Structure formats: structure tokens, C-alpha cells
């Protein structure tokens, strides 16, 4: 019986004009997205390699460590091969950093900076297609799955037989999900084959595992909208109201929640502005200045001025120590303020991310970005690697510079093999998966809840 219902559901779906339309559109969009992604990746890769080569050439042409210290190390972030599918935040964040002995390094020069045209439309990647277009298809497939059969009288006619309702709903769910899979799986497979055919795209076993997990995310995401469609369809009496409600929820999930979470987190966990931080710093400086005046007065009271070398010596020593003490205090306070600021900013960011997770579209975004290493975490890991490289570089260069002091004459030509390089290990598959796990769980829970809701609703559905 279940088999009959599943078969009928599949047949009904794949013979419908909307299926043909969906299938064609999905194929075109998915292939287009992969093609564009690969094109993007290849040009990124080319830029990356030429940046590396240029940096190496520059280093080689320097005649002393002093010159290298002045020039600094140029670091370029390697593009991610899975960025072909999930472009993540890659285009928006900086790709280049200079590590020298003076400044704190930061990544600058994003793709959007260098070519703002990209920013106009944003990336058309696979994640976006799945997030917006395929979720819409999932809704269009299911909005009338139950209520539509009621309107056409077929539900009544089906249930006039010896058919338990749970089989009807199970059969419908399985059958229509299978038929929804076809327009996703087939173009996705073609896209993967296409991806493999490009010469510069090398996918490791690790990458394939990631692709598999990303596909799992796509499936779960579509299943969320699919069960949502079934659920609303089992709770409405007209297909037009079902469609209306679903489109509303779709807009809320995809556009309102992610943006709203950011806005809401700003209210719930406010982060002081730069001005506020600066005025706090100024106030502390003022306090320290007062302390300085006070301290000096006490010193002169306790040690009345004498015109002796001993006194002068003592005053000088005291002055230097006092100055150092005050500077240390200011530094400590500034560091404390900075730390507090960063902590607040992180808390706000975390809140925004967690709030937005109630939308499956955010869960999809975070999960797939974690898996493709194109998200915020990987970016911050890279930035941290640069930051921890800085002291290594500084120590090495300073060592080289002091070696030369006193030797006089021409400094020796630097041997680049001695130069320590930045060591960055991309996030392991295991870590990426753990990072993506909460999003996976969120979606799985949504599916379970929605499906249970559909099931119960259908058992009590008024089929007349």
C-alpha cells in the first residue's frame, strides 16, 4: 500500500509541468554557479601564485636583512578550492598582509576592494542557489501536497478505501521528497564531474569528504523547507493560503531572521563605540597625569632638593622608575580596555550568529562555510597565524640586525633559507565538522519537529 502511494506520488510529481521546469532551471543554475565558481577560483589561484612569486623575487633582490626588515614579509591568503561552491566571506575579506617589525599585521585588499563590480551582485555560488532558489522550489512542490488533494477531492476518494492515514502521509512525504531530490542530485553530480574536469582544480580525499558533508547540508536544508511545506499544507484548508503562509515564512527565514539577528544583537549586547573607548582612555590618562603631579610633589616633600650629585642621581633614578611605572599602568589599562572591547564584540557576534540559527538558511550558511573553510573562523585562524608569525619574524630580524652591529663594513647577503616562514595549517576535517555540527543538529531538530507536526496534523486533518 505504501509502495502504491509512493509510486503514485513520484509519478504525479515528475509528470507535472512544474517538475520539468524546476529540473531545467536547477540544472542551469547549478551548472552556472559551479562554472562561475571555478572561474573565480582559477583567477584567484593565478593571482595567488603570482603574488607568491613576486614576493619571493622581491626578497631575493634584497641585499641585506636590514632591507628585508624595512620591506616586511608579504603574506597572501591562499584561495580555497571549495570556494568554487561556497564562496563564503572570501570575497569580502582582505587577502594580503604585510608582516614587519613595526605594525600589527592585518589582512587588506579584498576582492571587492580591487574590483567593486563583484560587490554589486555578490557571489552567485551554489550555496546561494540552494538557499534561495531550491528552497523556493521545495515550497512550490509541497504547498498543495495535502490541501491540494483535499481541494481536488482525491484525498477523500483515497481515504474511502482501506488505507490508514499514516501510510498516506508517509507515502506522500517519501514520494515527493524523492522526486524533489532528482532536480538537485542530477545537476549536482554533473556539476561535480564538471568541477573535476578543470585542470587547476585538485580535490583531495579530504575535499571530497567535505563535499559529501556539504551535500548533506543541502539535503537537510531542503528537507526543512519540504517538511515545512507539508506541515502548512496539512494545517490549511485552501492551497492559496498555504502558499501565502509559506512564502511569508520563507521570506522571514531567508531575509528577516539573519538581518534581524544582527540588529537585535546590537541592542541586546551593545558594544561601546570607538569614541567611548577613546574618552575612557583619555580619562585614565588624565588620572595618571594627576597621579604624576601628586607623586612628584610627594617625592620633593620627602626628599627636599639638594644641590648634590647624589640627590640628582637619586631624583633621576626615581623619575625614570616612576615614569616607567606610569607607562606600564597606561599600557595595562589600554590593554584591559581593548580586551574588554574585543570580548564584547565577540559576545555580540556570537549572539547574532546564535539568534540567526533559528533560521535554517543561517544554519546552512554557517555549516557550509565551516565545511568549505570559507567562513569567519578560517579567516580568523589565518589572521591569528599571521599575528603569531609576527614575533617570530621580528625576533629573527632583530637577531640578524644585532649580529651585524659592530662588524662594520658591508652586511652579508641574506640567506633566505634561514628566514622563518609563516606556518598555517587549514582547519582539519574533524574540527570543521565539529564546528558545523550545531547547524546540522538545528536543521535535524527542525525536520523532526515539523515532520511530527505534519504527521499529527494529518491524522486529524478534515479531509472533506
Amino acid at each position, binding site marked *: 500500500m505504501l509502495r502504491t502511494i509512493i509510486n503514485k506520488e513520484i509519478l504525479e510529481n515528475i509528470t507535472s509541468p512544474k517538475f520539468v521546469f524546476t529540473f531545467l532551471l536547477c540544472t542551469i543554475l547549478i551548472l552556472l554557479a559551479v562554472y562561475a565558481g571555478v572561474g573565480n577560483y582559477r583567477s584567484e589561484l593565478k593571482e595567488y601564485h603570482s603574488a607568491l612569486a613576486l614576493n619571493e623575487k622581491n626578497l631575493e633582490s634584497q641585499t641585506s636583512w636590514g632591507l628585508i626588515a624595512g620591506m616586511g614579509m608579504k603574506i597572501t591568503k591562499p584561495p580555497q578550492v571549495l570556494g568554487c561552491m561556497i564562496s563564503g566571506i572570501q570575497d569580502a575579506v582582505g587577502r594580503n598582509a604585510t608582516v614587519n617589525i613595526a605594525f600589527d599585521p592585518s589582512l587588506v585588499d579584498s576582492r571587492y576592494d580591487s574590483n567593486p563590480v563583484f560587490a554589486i551582485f555578490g557571489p552567485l555560488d551554489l550555496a546561494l542557489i540552494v538557499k534561495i532558489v531550491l528552497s523556493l522550489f521545495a515550497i512550490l512542490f509541497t504547498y498543495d501536497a495535502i490541501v491540494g488533494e483535499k481541494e*481536488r477531492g482525491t484525498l477523500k476518494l483515497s481515504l474511502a478505501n482501506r488505507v490508514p492515514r499514516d501510510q498516506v502521509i508517509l507515502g506522500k512525504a517519501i514520494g515527493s521528497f524523492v522526486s524533489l531530490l532528482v532536480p538537485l542530485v542530477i545537476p549536482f553530480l554533473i556539476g561535480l564531474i564538471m568541477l573535476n574536469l578543470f585542470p587547476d582544480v585538485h580535490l583531495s580525499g579530504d575535499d571530497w569528504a567535505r563535499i559529501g558533508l556539504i551535500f548533506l547540508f543541502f539535503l537537510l536544508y531542503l528537507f526543512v523547507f519540504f517538511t515545512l511545506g507539508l506541515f502548512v499544507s496539512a494545517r490549511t484548508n485552501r492551497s492559496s493560503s498555504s502558499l501565502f503562509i509559506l512564502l511569508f515564512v520563507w521570506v522571514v527565514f531567508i531575509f528577516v531572521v539573519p538581518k534581524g539577528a544582527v540588529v537585535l544583537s546590537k541592542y541586546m549586547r551593545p558594544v561601546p563605540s570607538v569614541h567611548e573607548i577613546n574618552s575612557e582612555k583619555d580619562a585614565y590618562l588624565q588620572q595618571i597625569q594627576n597621579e604624576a603631579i601628586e607623586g612628584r610633589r610627594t617625592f620633593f616633600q620627602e626628599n627636599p632638593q639638594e644641590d648634590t650629585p647624589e640627590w640628582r642621581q637619586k631624583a633621576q633614578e626615581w623619575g625614570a622608575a616612576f615614569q616607567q611605572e606610569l607607562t606600564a599602568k597606561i599600557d595595562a589599562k589600554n590593554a584591559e580596555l581593548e580586551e574588554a572591547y574585543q570580548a564584547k564584540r565577540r559576545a555580540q557576534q556570537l549572539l547574532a550568529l546564535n539568534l540567526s540559527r533559528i533560521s535554517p538558511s543561517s544554519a546552512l550558511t554557517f555549516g557550509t562555510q565551516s565545511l568549505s573553510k570559507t567562513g569567519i573562523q578560517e579567516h580568523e585562524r589565518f589572521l591569528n597565524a599571521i599575528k603569531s608569525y609576527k614575533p617570530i619574524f621580528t625576533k629573527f630580524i632583530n637577531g640578524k640586525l644585532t649580529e651585524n652591529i659592530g662588524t662594520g663594513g658591508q652586511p652579508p647577503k641574506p640567506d633566505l633559507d634561514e628566514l622563518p616562514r609563516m606556518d598555517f595549517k587549514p582547519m582539519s576535517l574533524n574540527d570543521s565538522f565539529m564546528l558545523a555540527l550545531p547547524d546540522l543538529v538545528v536543521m535535524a531538530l527542525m525536520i523532526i519537529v515539523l515532520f511530527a507536526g505534519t504527521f499529527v496534523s494529518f491524522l486529524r486533518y*478534515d479531509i472533506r
Partner: protein
Amino acid sequence: MLEAKDLTKRYEDGLLALDHVNFEVREGEIYCMLGANGAGKTTTINLFFNFIDPTEGQALVNGIDASKDPLEAKGNIAFVSENVMLYHNFTARQNIDYFAKLGGKTDLQKDDYYAVMRKVGLQDKAFEAKLKTFSKGMRQKLGIAIAIIKDAPNIILDEPTSGLDPKAAAEFMDILTELKKQGKAILMSTHDIFRAKTIADRVAIMKEGRIVMERTREEFLKDDLEKIYLNYMQGIAA
């Protein structure tokens, strides 16, 4: 055999749609239910399929209480509902195939389907045509074919002739008579007094949830059924 015993239905909004209705439809009998719009005919039928639960009383199908064992009861009734749309992307054959399987007929062939469709007056070229190209009457015919193919001991029809042209309606009457001869118990709600008169073994008039009149064939043939009906509608007992 179909039996209503003190069948009563009060809807959630408080409306008393059926008020202690009693009747029985025996094997080899056609029982016609007449009544104005909103009289309670469809409500009665829905109770036999347990689409709704009775407030009181029982709807029995071969002695099985439809609200206690709905699956068993439904296995014993074939159903023709008022203007069912069916699956419009399926062909007539695909539609009948699906419902036949739901009805427990899993071993039928294309030719069996064709035979039934021919019997209800569908043209051969319609067999493999998509339902969306069908007229209302053609859909109704297919609905009847679906009921016939289930081959259940009881048949319930809700205004089955509403979309049929006069010729098709006449053919349909012949089919019903044949089914009756096979020993089926047939319950039909209709507004068509003329048809009721030609084929019914018994006729009931329902009004505001109650059966206000029931007559056997001999009884109603003596009088003018149409006149009786109108009198009842105006509240004058004949």
C-alpha cells in the same frame, strides 16, 4: 448492507445536521435519498466512511460500525463522490489504476481498466488522455468506473449524475441496475427525482437532518413522487 441507527451529527459550531436518522439499504437494493441543499445527505455519507465522527448512533457497513473499525468498513464500500477532480496530470488509466490498487485490486491489467471505462461510456481515445483534458461529465464517468472496479458489496454515491448528459445519465442508470442485480447494496443521494423514480427500490426524503418520508417502489409509484417531494419541502405532509 448499510444501516443507519439513530445516526446523529452535531457540528462543532452547534448545528444539528443529522437528528436520529434510521434506515437500511439491503443487498440488491437501490436506496435513493432526496432532499434540499443542506438537508444532511453528504453528512450521512461522510459518516459511513468515518470522514467525521458521529455525535450519537451508528453507521453500520455489513454490521461493522464505521466509527469503531473504519478501515474494515471502508474496505466494504465503493464511493462515488460529488464532482471529484481526480489527478489532472494522470491519464484516465493511471487514475483508475491508482484507486484500484488502493481499493485492494492489485492484479488488474490494462484491459480490465479499459473494459470498465468502456462500460461507463468513456470513449477509447480518452483512456490514455490526461485528466486535465476531461470534461466534468467525463470525470464523473471515470469516478463511477473507479467505484465499479473496487467491486465492494456496498456502493455509496453522492449526486453521481450531476455532470452527466441525458444519454450518459440513462446509461448510468443501466449500470446501477446491473450492479443491483449483482447483489450490491446501493445508497445514492440525488436531486434528480425523475431518475430516482425510475430505478429506486426505496426513496427517502431528508429534511433538516431528519428522514421525513420513506416509501417503497410500489408505494411511490402510486402517487406523484415529485408532488410529494415539493409538499414535504413546503412543510405539508402528504
